[in-house]
């Protein structure tokens, strides 16, 4: 129903109904803003890029193929905008490392709010190409097939990169000497 609802709104936009586009913006702006924020990690840049995404979506609405899901299309535009922006800034990120350092013993156990903060920091420290996979899989709840379609990568590649991304993120938590495991 959600997909049909989007397609009806797109059809109305293409007939010149601007209110239908406003409904689409209202529906997706929070998700798109948060996805872009997770990629670029700056509120002001995320705001500018969110606007750019919705302007691009509007400009290209007549190219949207309604055999596909609208949200996949808009997520693809948002993720590409975020990654292009990061690449232009030429930020330097750490290289991926193996699982071995996950075994390091922790210094202390964290409470719930500290865990969220720690995860947020670990996510921020990831290479954007890994971060985007974590966001798509665990923030947007997309399937491997949907991620593969959006990033135009084979599912197998998506899976192996996501495995690596999870391990690097977990490793960054361990590196801080923190433990998010439950006390037993």
């Amino acid at each position, binding site marked *: *129903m959600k997909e049909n609802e989007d397609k009806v709104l797109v059809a109305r936009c293409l007939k010149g109904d601007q209110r239908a586009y406003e409904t689409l913006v209202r529906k997706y702006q929070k*998700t798109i803003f948060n996805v872009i924020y997770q990629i670029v990690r700056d509120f002001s840049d995320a705001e500018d890029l969110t606007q750019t995404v919705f*302007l691009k979506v*509007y400009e290209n609405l*007549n190219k949207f193929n309604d055999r596909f899901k609208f949200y996949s299309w808009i997520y693809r535009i948002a993720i590409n905008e975020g990654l292009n922006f990061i690449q232009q800034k030429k930020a330097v990120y750490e290289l991926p490392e193996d*699982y071995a350092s996950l075994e390091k013993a922790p210094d202390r156990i964290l409470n719930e709010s500290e865990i969220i903060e720690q995860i947020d920091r670990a996510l921020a420290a990831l290479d954007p190409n890994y971060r985007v996979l974590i966001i798509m899989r665990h*923030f947007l709840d997309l399937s491997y097939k949907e991620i593969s379609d959006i990033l135009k990568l084979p599912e197998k590649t998506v899976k192996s990169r996501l495995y690596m991304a*999870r391990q690097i993120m977990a490793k960054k938590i361990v590196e801080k000497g923190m*433990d*998010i495991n439950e006390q037993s």
Partner: protein
Amino acid sequence: MNNPEYIRLIHKHIDGELNADEQKGLQDILDRDPKVRRIHDLLVRSVRAIGDLPLHEPPAGILENIKRHIKPARYKVRQTTFLESLFTFLEPRRGWVVAFASVLLIGIVIVSVLGPGGPENVADLSGTIGAGVPAESDFVLQGEHFKGTFQLKVVDQEYHLKGAIEHIDDFDIRIQFNPAGSVRFLENRDMDRPSEIKMIENALVLHDRGRTKFDLIFSKTRVKATSVSIEITPVGESTLEKKILMN
């Protein structure tokens, strides 16, 4: 560097892709190796925590800025005919149209064969738009790990059902206005993320997980709503129910 087998199994476990043999294999390793148990717990909990990351409100004014920059003339406004509008509305609902037409046809046959006929047997739907107003507007449904805060109100010719959910797992919310056909579902506004929504036997069923918000908009029809029933089924908990009568 290749990952050891247990790492692959842990990732498959996170993705819910383990078969029974793999599940047992992983459990055996976890039971005998505290180092692997620790890696497993760390990965599982960190992935779970990502779903709990707070969603930031986008700055106010994004919509206004976008409206200022788009060129409405790009997509030419054209007066649509009644038939075009009807087709646009029905086109994505082809399955429902066929089902409705079949039921209608069967109904006509039954009435023509069995019914006594005459205008006194025809339901009167000629009144004003259904004017039911909820007798109660704010309510909370709470289970062991589930808490939902709801508000139901009437805005012009629409019902707005807002909900803020706090839960750690999946849940279904089934909403049914009575009698059937007294509302039409329009859209979900104010979402934390798009929820899965579908119609099952005249009821709207929303599926989501974790902490989320929604604002479901229903338009009234010519049939007056007399009540709305809300059933919530959080995974691992008993079903919570609420029925609100319309004045």
